């Protein structure tokens, strides 16, 4: 009889003790510290709303890093590198040929580009050969449009050369 009463008291005491840690729910726990990244090309989606920690962009207005809860903005991208720091901590680098990055509210980031490849896919010989060719056209006496196009190519190649060894 006496032992039964002790058991019932223990039964009543236990749920109260378990409830305590659940009662506090701070702001930091409610907000995710990841960004949902979509990196899409016309022919392929490299990231499809994947959770990543940080994304570094080469925008026309300057280099920028995007973390969770970034201010919404639209950035025109330079032909340049995009660095993605994934959840596991590994960093991946892609070279994009220009496009737009849209930072949406609630940690959603969409990057649209015409052409983009992992940095390992580029060949330094091809870049060097093209720089020589573009320089020839840029300083030659072609039409104004040909020279302008050669200068665009030079701009892209020179930023590529920094990353491809």
């Amino acid at each position, binding site marked *: 009889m006496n032992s039964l009463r002790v058991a019932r008291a223990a039964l009543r005491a236990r749920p109260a003790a378990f409830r305590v840690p659940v009662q506090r729910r701070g702001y930091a726990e409610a907000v995710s510290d990841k960004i949902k990244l979509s990196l899409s090309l016309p*022919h392929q989606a490299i990231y499809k709303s994947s959770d990543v920690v940080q994304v570094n962009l080469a925008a026309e207005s300057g280099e920028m890093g995007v973390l969770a809860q970034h201010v919404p903005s639209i950035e025109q991208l330079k032909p340049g590198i995009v660095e993605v720091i994934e959840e596991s901590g590994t960093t991946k680098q892609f070279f994009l040929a220009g496009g737009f990055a849209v930072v949406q509210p609630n940690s959603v980031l969409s990057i649209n580009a015409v052409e983009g*490849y992992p940095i390992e896919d580029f060949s330094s010989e091809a870049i060097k050969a093209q720089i020589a060719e573009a320089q020839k056209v840029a300083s030659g006496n072609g039409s104004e449009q040909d020279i302008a196009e050669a200068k665009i190519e030079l701009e892209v190649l020179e930023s590529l050369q920094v990353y491809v060894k």
Partner: protein
Amino acid sequence: MTYAWKAAGLTYNRYLAVAARVVRRSLKEEPRLAAERRGQMDLRFAKWTNGKMGEPQNVADANAKAYAEKASS
């Protein structure tokens, strides 16, 4: 800020196409062959006036002509 390509009459669309072309050409052999096909474009158009079809033109050539006309200098 005005870009040099804009002063030469090029559109943003053309700027991106040139940048994408050079990126594709800088790739290693294997991905390059797969990618370069994406850069090919062969479109033609013709202007119809009074129910008659005009001379068919290549879009790329017509665009190049339009850029030259739009150049500011």
